[in-house]
């Protein structure tokens, strides 16, 4: 008899968990609403994030209508335009992407992928969602309060954010800060869960270096978020005090609309440092889960192990660490100490190296693979293109002196949409198609999925690639109208109109996606438990969709890494992580 590896390592959970520990729901309410099951919480997070994300999508249409056809739509004025861009940005970055990757995918996948029954603190996990929902409702309420939502830009820079020249100075900014504070409280409750679950609740045999990269990405991003969000928390509290109590953390002596203000002694730059100390890691908080997930999509659908797994793990960790020392590259033209430029340009460009390694390893995984061009794989390919494009333009903006002419132009808008808008959304969409059969037990409609991919990918590329050139020309961002400006030719206005038409098309094509998800829920073919013939544990559950507790009576035991695809000599082209090596004699329930 061959020994089962890693059996009996201290700290591994017992194979069987007594019923009482699982907090089984006792009623409809505790099953579907106040549920403590991470999978239900994941779906609640995902639906809420998608709902508020749709609001942000509609806002982007309104912005594009104004930019593409200035003066045509009388129902959009300059104040509303600023409110639209602010809410669009804040919702997309924090309330959609962060919540979806960590609260949605994190909750669903972490316990399943590490072989746990649930998150380690289910009650706190449930609270996390409800506080998040409250944060979303507070944010959404700003559309209905006097003065409307804040129009300070998603960066909320003081003094402007809390002075009367900015829309939403009354209620909007106060509720925005309150909502952010709530979001961070809710996230912290969820985030501690994800970290502790990965560290403490992995099943027998699941060493850290056997974790799927999805878990590595979400885990590292969560650790980063736990360290980065406090900076935003502090900034939000201080700005709220400046606004409500008349303190001057960020407010120097200034004149407000011709009148001497009561403020004095504060520093606007301090806010920017705090904001970006959070804000730059935030980019990677969104990117790292995408990196992890896309690695697994590529490996599964190319039937090949991810190339250079160890390097991929270290690259994730290195990017996570480095991303805490690059924040001031958002502030090259802020008026900060000029010598900072050398340091932050250097650290920023160094990040390109581990990031490039990840890209190389994704495409090298395709080399001599057996590439199934299913919808999730198509989205993964779309991710690589948009991410490479957006990552490379980051080398322009990170290189301090190159940033000087390009900052605050449409080049920046195009860059960050490509790299942290389109690219992660490609992964989100690919991942939804990929795990849809596991979550629902049914297959999506393939033709609709492919249509959705091509319109979204090509459309998004047509929106954001030419936009860089508007920025190169010098077209500034956050402009309600370009007006009569000598250096902007009329062809630039035509390009803006073109971009707007494509943006509306791509936006509406998302309805096809939503229809596909809804329709397939009832009419989709039964998918079976492991339609992609994948190796990771979530595909090996006894039930599909997995029941509460995930694993039936016994936890799975892990014998191998997550990427045993096309192993020479094996009968099938995949070997699940919980399949014992040949010749191993497994005694059922031996470890309990």
């Amino acid at each position: 008899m061959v020994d089962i590896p890693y059996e009996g390592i201290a700290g591994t959970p017992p194979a069987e968990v007594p019923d009482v520990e699982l907090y089984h729901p006792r009623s409809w309410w505790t099953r579907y609403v106040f549920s403590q099951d991470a999978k239900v919480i994941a779906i609640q997070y995902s639906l809420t994030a998608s709902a508020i994300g749709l609001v942000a999508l509609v806002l982007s249409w309104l912005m594009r209508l104004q930019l593409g056809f200035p003066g045509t739509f009388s129902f959009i004025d300059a104040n509303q335009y600023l409110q639209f861009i602010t809410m669009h940005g804040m919702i997309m970055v924090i309330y959609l992407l962060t919540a979806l990757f960590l609260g949605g995918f994190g909750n669903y996948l972490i316990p399943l992928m590490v072989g746990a029954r649930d998150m380690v603190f289910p009650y706190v996990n449930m609270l996390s969602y409800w506080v998040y929902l409250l944060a979303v409702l507070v944010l959404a309420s700003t559309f209905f309060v006097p003065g409307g939502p804040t129009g300070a830009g998603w960066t909320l820079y003081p003094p402007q954010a809390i002075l009367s020249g900015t829309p939403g100075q009354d209620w909007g900014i106060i509720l925005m800060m309150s909502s952010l504070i709530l979001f961070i409280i809710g996230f912290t409750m969820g985030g501690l869960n994800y970290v502790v679950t990965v560290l403490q609740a992995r099943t027998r045999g699941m060493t850290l270096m056997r974790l799927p990269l999805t878990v590595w990405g979400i885990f590292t991003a969560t650790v980063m978020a736990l360290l980065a969000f406090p900076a935003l928390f502090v900034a939000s509290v201080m700005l709220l005090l400046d606004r409500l109590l008349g303190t001057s953390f960020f407010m120097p002596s200034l004149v407000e609309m011709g009148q001497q203000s009561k403020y004095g002694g504060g520093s606007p730059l301090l806010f920017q440092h705090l904001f970006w100390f959070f804000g730059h890691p935030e980019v990677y908080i969104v990117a790292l889960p995408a990196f992890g997930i896309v690695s697994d999509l590529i490996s599964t659908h190319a039937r090949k192990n991810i190339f250079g797994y160890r390097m991929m793990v270290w690259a994730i960790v290195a990017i996570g660490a480095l991303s805490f020392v690059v924040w001031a590259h958002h502030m090259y033209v802020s008026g900060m100490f000029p010598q900072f430029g050398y340091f932050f340009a250097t650290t920023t460009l160094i990040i390109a190296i581990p990031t490039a390694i990840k890209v190389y390893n994704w495409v090298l995984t395709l080399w001599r693979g057996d590439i199934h061009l299913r919808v999730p794989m198509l989205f993964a390919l779309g991710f690589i293109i948009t991410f490479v494009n957006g990552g490379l333009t980051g080398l322009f903006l990170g290189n301090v002196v190159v940033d000087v002419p390009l900052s605050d132009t449409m080049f920046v808008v195009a860059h960050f949409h490509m790299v942290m808008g389109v690219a992660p959304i490609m992964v989100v969409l690919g991942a939804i198609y990929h795990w849809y059969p596991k979550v629902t037990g049914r297959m999506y409609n393939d033709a609709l999925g492919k249509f959705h991919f091509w319109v979204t990918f090509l459309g998004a590329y047509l929106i954001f690639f030419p936009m860089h050139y508007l920025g190169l020309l010098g077209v500034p961002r956050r402009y309600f109208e370009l007006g009569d400006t000598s250096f902007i030719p009329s062809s630039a206005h035509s390009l803006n109109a073109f971009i707007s038409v494509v943006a509306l098309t791509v936006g509406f094509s998302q309805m096809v996606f939503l229809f596909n998800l809804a329709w397939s829920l009832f009419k989709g073919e039964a998918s079976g438990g492991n339609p992609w013939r994948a190796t990771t544990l979530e595909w090996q559950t006894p039930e599909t969709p997995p029941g509460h507790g995930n694993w039936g009576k016994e936890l799975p035991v892990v014998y191998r890494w997550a990427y045993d695809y096309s192993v020479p000599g094996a009968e099938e082209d995949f070997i699940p992580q919980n399949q014992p090596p040949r010749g191993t004699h497994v005694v059922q329930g031996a470890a309990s």
Partner: protein
Amino acid sequence: MAVALILLLVAIGSVLFHIYSPWWWTPIATNWAYIDHTINITFWITGFVFVAVIAFMAYCVFRFHHKEGRRADYNPENKKLEWWLSVGTGIGVAAMLAPGLVVWHQFVTVPADATEVEVMGQQWQWSFRLPGKDGRLGTSDVRNIASDNPMGLNRDDPHAQDDVVIENGDLHLQLGKPVKVLLRSVDVLHDFYVPEFRAKMDMVPGMVTYFWITPIRTGTFDVLCAELCGAAHYQMRAKVIIDEEREYHAWLEQQKTFAELSPANTVVKARFQSGGK
């Protein structure tokens, strides 16, 4: 293989767009062509990587897409290859960073012979100030701002009296003369942005920021605000005119000094306090 072809076309189309697009940077008007060169270096390096990665990916999709009976290789890692790719990337990054840092050094090192000009931002207009005959700008403070002193100059400072103050007018600069542009705001963040200058910098209340340029061609240029400053951000405009020496001085002669713009009694008081001048 349609998918591979489309992926390849995305790369080729991007390059063609880059070459034939009518949208490119404005003709430069200052000494910062170095910045344009650095951008060009960056375009070459990143463009090469972009095309190489996507072409490789498209080839893989074309060559290794699923067919009946195909089986993937088993190839967990290749240390040597990963090492070489990392080193190559490092060299590429250094090739962009090094010239960038050299130019940044020039950008933050103001030449000693640069004359000072002040730009002040407020919601939503620009004001300008030039040193008078004494060649020095007087001190200023936000707390001094009043309807008869919109730039908040210090009435007790003799250097301020002869400063040329331009309210709601255009700024003129002299061709070929290095100028340090001092930037100040009295309310919120602004950013003095002239695309043809390449240089820009935020204006922060409570601080004085700066950049420097040497104008290299005459002309009239639009000034925009590049840092969101509230509802009328997009309407915060002015013009900068770069003149030959003779035209510049002719223009300068017509401008009013702070003392000339001030009510008579305050000027007398200042002269008295500073010992007369």
